């Protein structure tokens, strides 16, 4: 039971340590905000379509770690085992969520027994079977869920998110 706390401490330190090299390097290549960029700006955020895995990789009720829209935004890909609203795939049961608590950004752990994500920081919890609804907690939004598409080969792609991800003022980081 307590192992999740230890895992979380490690993950938290990682985030606190600012070891976020990939995003930083990418950002450095982007031009400073200016006229050229303003002309290209679009009303909505363009999300990447990222392959997260294949249905064959998933085990029912065992979350797979993912990063979306980029590696610095941790999440899980999960085959619930029974159809849920918003679930993707042939069984309508595949979902993906950010695992940074939208309260203060702590790294949440999955509790398989009741299919919830739980925050070690201040004990908020979110229901993976109900679109990430906060069951109880301090966040002022439900958990960001990633929109999924499954192709005919069983490859699962993330297409977007439905709430702002903790720690970024644009879900797709912009320079």
């Amino acid at each position, binding site marked *: 039971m307590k192992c999740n*706390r230890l895992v979380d401490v490690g993950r938290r330190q990682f985030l606190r340590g600012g070891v976020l090299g990939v995003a930083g390097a990418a*950002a450095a290549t982007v031009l400073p905000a200016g006229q050229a960029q303003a002309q290209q700006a679009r009303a909505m955020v363009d999300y990447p379509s990222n392959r997260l895995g294949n249905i064959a990789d998933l085990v029912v009720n065992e979350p797979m770690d993912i990063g979306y829209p980029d590696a610095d935004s941790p999440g899980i890909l999960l085959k619930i085992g029974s159809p849920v609203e918003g679930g993707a795939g042939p069984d309508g049961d595949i979902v993906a969520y950010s695992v940074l608590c939208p309260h203060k950004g702590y790294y949440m752990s999955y509790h398989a027994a009741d299919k*919830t994500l739980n925050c070690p920081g201040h004990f908020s919890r979110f229901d993976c079977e*109900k*679109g990430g*609804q906060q069951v109880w907690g*301090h966040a*002022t*939004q439900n958990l960001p869920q990633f929109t999924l598409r499954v192709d005919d080969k069983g490859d699962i792609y993330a297409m977007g998110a439905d709430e702002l991800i903790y*720690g970024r003022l644009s879900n797709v980081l912009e320079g």
Partner: protein
Amino acid sequence: MAYKRNIDRLPIIPAGAKEHNVTCHYCIVGCGYTAYTWPLKTQGTTDRNWIGEDLSKQQATDTEAWYAPSMYNVVKQDGKDVHLVIKPDVNCDVNSGLGSIRGARMAENRRSDVTGTQRQRLTEPLVWRYGTWQPTSWDDALDLVARVTAKVIDKDNENDLYVSMFDHGGSAGGYENTWGTGKLYFESMKVKHCRIHNRPAYMSEVHSSRDMGVDELNYNYADYEVTDTIFLVGTNPMECQTNLFLNHMVKGMQNGARVVISDPRRTVTVDSCEQVAGAENVLHLPITTGSDVALHNTLFTYIADQGWADADFIAASTFQGDVAVAADSAYPAALGSYEAARAACKMSLAEGAAATGLTEAQIIQAAEWIAKPKDDGSRRKCVTGYEKGIIWGNDNYRAIGSLLNIGLATGNVGREGGGVCRLGGHQEGYYRPSDAHVGRPAPYIDQMIIAGGGKVHHIWANDHFKTTLNASEFKRVYNRRSNMVKEAMDARAGATREEMIDAIVGAINAGGLFVVDVDIIHSQIGQAAHVILPAVESGEMNLTSMNGERRLRLTEKYMDAPGSAKPDCMIAAGLAQALERVLREEGRTEYADQFKGYDWATEEDAFMDGYNKGNPEVTYDRLRAMGNNGVLEPVTGFADGKLTGTNRLYEDGVFTRHGREDGKALFCMGEWRGWQAAGKAQQQASHRFLINNGRANMNWQNWFLDQGNEFVMDRFPVPFIQINPDDMAELGLKAGDMVEVHNDVGATQALVYPEPSARPNETFMIFGAPNGAQGNIVNAGVNELILPNYKHTWANIRKISDATPASAAVSYKSWEVEL
């Protein structure tokens, strides 16, 4: 499907954005926030922004450089649209950057013409005309109120004017607004028939504490961090005072404090304490509901018998002798010395266990954690927090008095790591002329209205329909009496002002009630009103309040009022001026003169006329400079550019709240006597389920803004009632089913939420909801001083519907975290 905003990018606060001090206007903790505003067509960038961080990168846990969509809005400031971000202040000692599920929605819960939030806010005065409410000017609305009111009051008799007025800080309360209303009703008038926002009379909720000499807010929050034991009684701070729990109690537990929690149900607070301190350091006492006095008296007896009392403190700071104040109609228990209280409250472990349903071992363990000296002989520090579980529970006066007995006996008042304090609901902000003329016990206003009392009713941000007891009957009578006036007004549509006044007076003389409602929204009791006046909240005005450790701060105005809405103090001033004019016209010169003195241009003028006169060191400029950390009241001076305050009350061991010249605290001589309020034992005997009730963390008070907040209403479309799954099975109930909760005084509705930790036949229902008022089924029983006992209600439960589509979509999982 869970509500999602589908906001995937927010405007960035630019460097140089305006910053305003904000104290959260919801709960008593008063977390510090900063409101940033900047012009609508400008924004910061990822590399040039308010905080100087590189926002092209993912920010870390606990970052200052992020805000949620709920912390953002577009509002009017000086007539122009501006961006608004209200985010928690990391430099505020109260919350250290933590936001709560309430406060972190402040921006979203502002009215916005651009984003469409809180369109329910009132923007113009409304009067009843042509069979509904019509917008009108302030002059027209106040003139009507003044003319009707003047018909029923006179210099020597204002008893036909009933007034319901908030007494709190925060929100739309505060020192400015309690003074404005207080000056009108307690200085210009001497209104006797009045009540407070959440209870049916005008009185303290903690009479016994004050009578014993102890103000109910005597510590500071840091005392939780340095104590040995946290004793929580009838309070659920993880939900109701969230950041007091997370930012102070948690630190105390991390520093080694143990926790004793007296509560008939296993709350989220119990679970959270176990998570932080380890279950071995948390003692939950699941007492038989209403048996608090028995528990406290047994603990007091045992601690005294063990010799764990603080003899030096008792000798130096408490009354020596026998009885200091005899019991009578104003004092529900005698007050006296330590030894006199020991004799009166004496209760053996066996008697205590029988009354509370606890084991003797549990009571002994609690006593040891609270009072047993440490192995090295040093005293154990214990801080005690209590709230509605006993305030609105059985035998209020003795329950609080018996708890304070333990704190006084162990010397835990006025010392570091100590204090016996209520945890509170709203912030405080009370500054009014004396209320002594109201009397003690105070008149039971809501029952008097039911009995036909009153002709004109002025309501200031009260919603009896959601927050009174015996609410089913109250609503029936109130609607009938106010409708009599509406019908009379409808019958004279087109009449002159004078003719209309005559029609109204005729209706009220026949038993009708003329209703004036001052509020920020069109409330449920407001549906009965004939005149509705729009008020503002903090942030829409400058507003001063103090929190649960007496921390006084100024929330700066950061946006315009909705429409022509005004601060309550300015509305009170306008009403006073209208009354003066009408009375003078009528030739009642001497009476009219009483309504002089309201020539305030701003809320700051009201502050200076009231609070500043009693506290001349305190000004807006000085408070502004003190920022979100403010100053702890009482303010003692001003030096080196700063206000100086009082870190903790009674550090000198001199107790003053009762007004005794000897400065000695008194003990409460209140023996355990079972159910105190009328009708409780009978209702318990004839109904199956206890309908315990209270708050949940996301629904603020009576949901007045939350009922217009999608995030909140998506979670609980109607109020929940938590029921043991075995009871559900027996009644044939599924999660989400709509049930009717009914008893001898009324009925209400709720959705079924399974709660495995609920004891059989003991439910918990959320209080004050707009679409399922729990008060409908609370009987009229009160204590000797008219304190309501909302908590003790019994009823039967029957299914009335399967889950509604909205209720079927929500989560019914346990609230307890699994790590």
